[in-house]
């Protein structure tokens, strides 16, 4: 009887297209909602994604990446001396003002990242142009492609390798352009060396904000993090844990996830309304024929299985179409600039939601069909 169920479903192409479109639309709504939610959250740890280090060490008071509590310069050596640490390097993260030359002094706020000149630990890996080793040259910086984009959009100036601008009255020459994740509020990043960053950033007594580290081969991240914390009194976490901390901070203390979460919920409710109602209406339209099948001796169990199969097919097809459309749309967007992140839990979650909606509508339909008097078919 399953082939009959499929023919009932596919036979009327217009109705089938309408059903699948409804589910696809619901999928699109939910996918963009979830992707926006995760995208906004990913902005909270953009710098962690850009720097990339197995272990991050910072002041125990720090709760997220944007919260910079100064460390002593000697903390780098203290971390380096812990058993199980392969290497440790200083890192500066802070705000700076990039002042464009020959542009009437217009300026851009940026996130300044100072990395160790010897190891270049934390240097950007996705360079669009230039060479990361050139960071060792005098006055050199690597800028975010989003910074180039913003300067062009806002100031009409197209920055390229070799161009010079100022930070804290010091010259900065572009030796590389990297594709980096953008932070909250459109914040872009500029890389330089740790020593040079101390000159570009507003002066403070203690400039070290983080220590980057890596475990020796054969040592686990958790084990080495624990050892660093015990030996130094600083907090040491893996990259994933630091991202989670930053996400959690944003979820707890920022209104943005609530607003976006509300959009996700609304998307889900609209999805339920559209797809559930569409499928239920499909069953209602077929009540007479399902009644005829029942009169002719089809059991409630068989009818239920037929309806569930139809719901499953509609759900999977609509989901595939919707998620395909969204994937194509997302991949057409410039990377790192738009807060839409299609992590694997998004399609999996949306698939579960779609199946939940379809199966819910199907179960309601099954309930209705099970109550149909087969004698209904004798009524004209």
């Amino acid at each position, binding site marked *: *009887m399953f*082939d*009959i169920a499929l*023919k*009932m479903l*596919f*036979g*009327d192409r217009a109705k089938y297209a309408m059903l699948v479109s409804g589910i696809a639309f619901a999928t699109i709504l939910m996918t963009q909602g979830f992707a926006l939610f995760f995208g906004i959250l990913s902005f909270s740890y953009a710098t962690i994604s850009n720097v990339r280090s197995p272990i991050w060490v910072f002041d125990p008071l720090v709760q997220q990446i944007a919260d910079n509590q100064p460390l002593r310069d000697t903390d780098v050596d203290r971390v380096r001396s812990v058993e199980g640490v392969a290497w440790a390097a200083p890192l500066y993260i802070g705000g700076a003002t990039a002042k464009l030359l020959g542009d009437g002094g217009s300026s851009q706020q940026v996130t300044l990242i100072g990395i160790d000149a010897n190891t270049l630990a934390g240097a950007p890996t996705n360079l669009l142009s230039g060479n990361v080793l050139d960071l060792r040259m005098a006055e050199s910086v690597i800028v975010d492609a989003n910074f180039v984009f913003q300067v062009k959009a806002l100031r009409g100036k197209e920055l390229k390798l070799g161009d010079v601008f100022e930070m804290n009255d010091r010259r900065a020459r572009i030796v590389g352009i990297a594709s980096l994740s953008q932070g909250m509020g459109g914040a872009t990043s500029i890389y330089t060396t740790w020593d040079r960053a101390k000159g570009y950033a507003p002066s403070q007594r203690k400039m070290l904000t983080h220590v980057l580290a890596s475990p020796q081969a054969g040592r686990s991240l958790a084990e080495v993090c624990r050892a660093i914390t015990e030996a130094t009194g600083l907090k040491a976490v893996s990259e994933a844990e630091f991202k989670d901390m930053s996400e959690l901070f944003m979820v707890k203390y920022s209104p943005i996830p609530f607003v976006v979460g509300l959009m996700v919920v609304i998307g889900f409710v609209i999805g339920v309304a559209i797809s559930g109602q569409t499928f239920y209406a499909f069953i209602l339209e077929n009540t*007479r*024929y399902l*009644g*005829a*099948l*029942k*009169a*002719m*001796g*089809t*059991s*409630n169990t*068989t009818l239920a299985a037929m309806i569930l199969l139809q719901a499953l097919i509609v759900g999977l097809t609509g989901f595939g179409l919707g998620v395909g459309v969204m994937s194509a749309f997302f991949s057409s967007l410039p990377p790192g600039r738009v807060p839409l992140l299609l992590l694997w839990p998004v399609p999996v979650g949306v698939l579960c939601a779609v199946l939940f909606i379809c199966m819910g509508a199907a179960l309601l339909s099954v309930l209705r069909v099970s109550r149909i*008097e*087969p*004698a209904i*078919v*004798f*009524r*004209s």
Partner: protein
Amino acid sequence: MSTPATAETTATPAPGQPAVCLRAVDKSFRNGDQITPVLKQVDFTALAGEMLLLVGPSGCGKTTLLSVLCGTLHADAGRIEAFGHTLSALSPALVTRFRASHVGFIFQQFNLLPTLTAAENVAVPLRIQGVSAAKALPRARELLARVGIGDKAGERPNRLSGGQQQRVAIARALVHDPALIVCDEPTSALDSVTGHQVMDLLRGTASDGRRTVIVVTHDPRIYRYADRMAEMEDGRILRVLPSPAAIAAAHPHA
């Protein structure tokens, strides 16, 4: 008649012997607080191999009686026996299985599945019984040829005329060789010529003596096809006309 162990087995009575018996059957419909009795202590017998017409004014209970005797509607009280089964004592699941194996249906509005071809529609009762499509479809095409529309096997119902659709419905009612065929107003949606062609076909299905055909109708044009006729009024069997001659005498203008 005794109740056999399974709903699929058939105790086939000899032609002229009782095939379906209703004793003191009541059926009411509830609408809010209002209860409307539709069948009142109905006693009724259909014989094997006969074509029996159920006639009467609208609302007299014909269709309800048809529904009860074929097991699509549960009676409130009374005893219903059909082909060796006490339907009124069977579980709903067994009644469903009884319908699948013993009853062929012909509906006023045909109720053909619009997305299936004629042959696929005809094959449905066999598919319900678990017969594979590969085995059911050739049998369905054979039946379509028997009712004169073998060339329409691949057409969907919306490409067929009303008469052709009713022929598909007749083929569907016969495909699993049921002992009982119930027809609800089979000619009401058809013109006169097509109606007579359909009744000729139905008449033929009963004439081998193995099948009982019960027809609910308002259409006097088809009275002459009946072996017997039960006249109903206000939820009761008013009288049973026992032969074609008695029907002709009672309804001379039919």
